[in-house]
């Protein structure tokens, strides 16, 4: 299953896709599997599993904390394949990861094991196509999606070269800043999506900062996918216990899913 399968469905329904992000191994290994199932049950069209990393320079406090907690709980890279295998089949499962973890595991080996687990592809926030030779080869060899980011500061030239290297969709980083739920969505995001669309037919996902159904509806009006991360993590960070977190995640996902269907 690949990102294209989810977009075929949402396009037919005339709406944006809802993509839920959660670090694998958070709040625990078993509960991260459960959380993914909850998101899918309540309307997520695609899942991004984060790979916890010691030095996540793209992430704000919420995701940092969750990743730290997963690592403190003993999370190992190979367990992301376990989680993928457990949840794959219903919707496309992508992994969002800082590059050193893949490089250390072995780029080809990672692609092989992830594809074998039923994974759809990788989103690589600190890998630009210019440095991605080995990953481009491996993703071709194992038929994996390859999602690179464009940003408000990207030049026209870089948007062109970045979308050319993408497969599955393009990730539009909607604000100049790290991940984190924000009260207001970005004013520059629509312009970035429009600039990107001029150069590709690939779907464009918009991420960073979404936390409500209203915001999801707003972004779904111009983006092809609404990507939600910190707000999902916050369901657990702020909850007194994990079952409450699951409960809050169900409610949040339902609200977001309703938003993309407006």
């Amino acid at each position, binding site marked *: 299953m690949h990102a294209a399968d989810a977009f075929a469905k949402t396009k037919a329904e005339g709406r944006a896709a809802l993509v839920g992000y959660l670090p694998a191994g958070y709040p625990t290994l078993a509960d991260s599997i459960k959380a993914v199932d909850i998101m899918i049950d309540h309307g997520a069209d695609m899942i991004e599993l984060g790979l916890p*990393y*010691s*030095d*996540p*320079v*793209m*992430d*704000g*406090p919420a995701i*940092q904390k969750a990743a*730290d907690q997963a*690592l403190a709980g003993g999370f*190992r*890279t190979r367990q992301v394949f376990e989680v993928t295998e457990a949840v794959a089949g219903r919707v496309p499962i992508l992994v969002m990861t*800082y*590059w*050193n*973890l*893949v*490089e*250390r*595991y072995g780029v080809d080996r990672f692609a092989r094991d992830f594809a074998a687990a039923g994974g759809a592809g990788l989103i690589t*926030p*600190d*890998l*630009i196509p*210019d*440095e991605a030779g080995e990953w481009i080869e491996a993703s071709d060899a194992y038929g994996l999606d390859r999602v*690179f*980011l*464009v*940003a*408000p*500061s*990207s*030049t026209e030239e*870089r948007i062109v070269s*970045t979308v050319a290297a993408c497969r599955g969709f393009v990730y539009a*980083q909607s604000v*100049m*800043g*790290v991940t984190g739920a924000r009260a207001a969505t970005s004013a520059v995001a629509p312009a970035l999506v429009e600039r990107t669309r001029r150069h590709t037919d690939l779907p464009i996902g918009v991420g960073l900062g979404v936390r409500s159904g209203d915001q999801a509806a707003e972004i779904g009006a111009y983006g092809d996918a609404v990507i939600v991360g910190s707000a999902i993590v916050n369901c657990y960070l702020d909850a007194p216990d994990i079952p409450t977190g699951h409960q809050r995640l169900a409610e949040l996902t339902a609200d977001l899913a309703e938003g993309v269907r407006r």
Partner: protein
Amino acid sequence: MPNPDASGHWGEFGGRFVPEALIAALDELEAAHTAALADPAFTAELEQLGREYGNLPSPLYFAERLSEEAGVEVWLKREDLNHTGAHKIRNVLGQALLTKRMGKRRIIAETGAGQHGVASATAAAYFGLECTVYMGEEDTRRQALNVARMRLLGAEVVPVTTGSRTLKDAMNEALREWVASVDHTHYLIGSVGGPAPFPQLVRDYCRGIGDEARAQFLERTGALPDVVAACVGGGSNAMGIFTAFLEDESVKLFGFEAGGDGYDTGRHAATITAGQIGVLHGARTFVLQDEDGQTIESHSISAGLDYPGVGPEHAHLAATGRAVYEPVDDAEAMAALEKLARTEGIICAIESAHGLAGALRLAKGLKAGSRVLVNLSGRGDKDMGNVVEYFGFAGAPEKSGE
């Protein structure tokens, strides 16, 4: 050899492993730096600033009594006499002048012990730039005096409470902040690490150390040194002195990394000796990392060397064999620091003592009369608290620093 390829790689090392959001700023920085170095007005202003404000060029000093004990000629490049007490003033003056030239009004910096933070705050005060320094919370407590210096100089010091709360986390935080403020803010990085063009840029501003030393050495001795030695944290003082000698095949280059409690204890910062190739803070280089690629915390008595990565050009020099890197543990460094104090009346930084200790170890295997040039990258005032604690000097104030 000196310059990386067009995409910022030395061999397989270097490059740009950062969010796309920063690429435009890195391109702008690279273009501005290249243009600045080609502009005689810029280089003249920087040279004058170094001379009148930074106390450059630093002297080359023949350490006679130390040489007698070592059995080789020991020559010291006295970066400890620079304004703010270390080679770091060269980097910050260059980058701050470049910041002005780019029309940006603010700098941010990361710092471990606070030396780079103090240097950055100094340059910001000189140029009238806003300055924010990210510093691990742990370090703000251990280095309260440097925090006070930065504040006195008008900088804002932000304690970093994420991750291990040390230098690497301060660097993460600076990168995060930079993404959000890149339109008006320059990230004044403290060493020869980070994404291209930083490693080359910082080296270019520090290379005066070696350019001066090479000319001074030729003038004083009529020959080149046999060995050039420096300590290596991120690697700016070492690249600063190595660069002028890279093409001199007869000159052996040695970098000394922090061996901490002892290389075999696993508690050290010997990144090239013990690390594996990976990606950290925007560059491919050697990294202290576990089996999964998670960064391992480094350890050293010297805060300035206590970093689990290293500049990519050093990784390349190590891989090609042009330079040799060896660990020096805490005890060996502190012994060299004491020896220098007692033979020459010079109290150097603990970082620099690692370079000196490595050179003295090396001297035992050299022909009598060999000439060894050591980069004395900084002075030891900032380290007196550690010195008191380490040597157990009775009657000394408990927390001295200056």
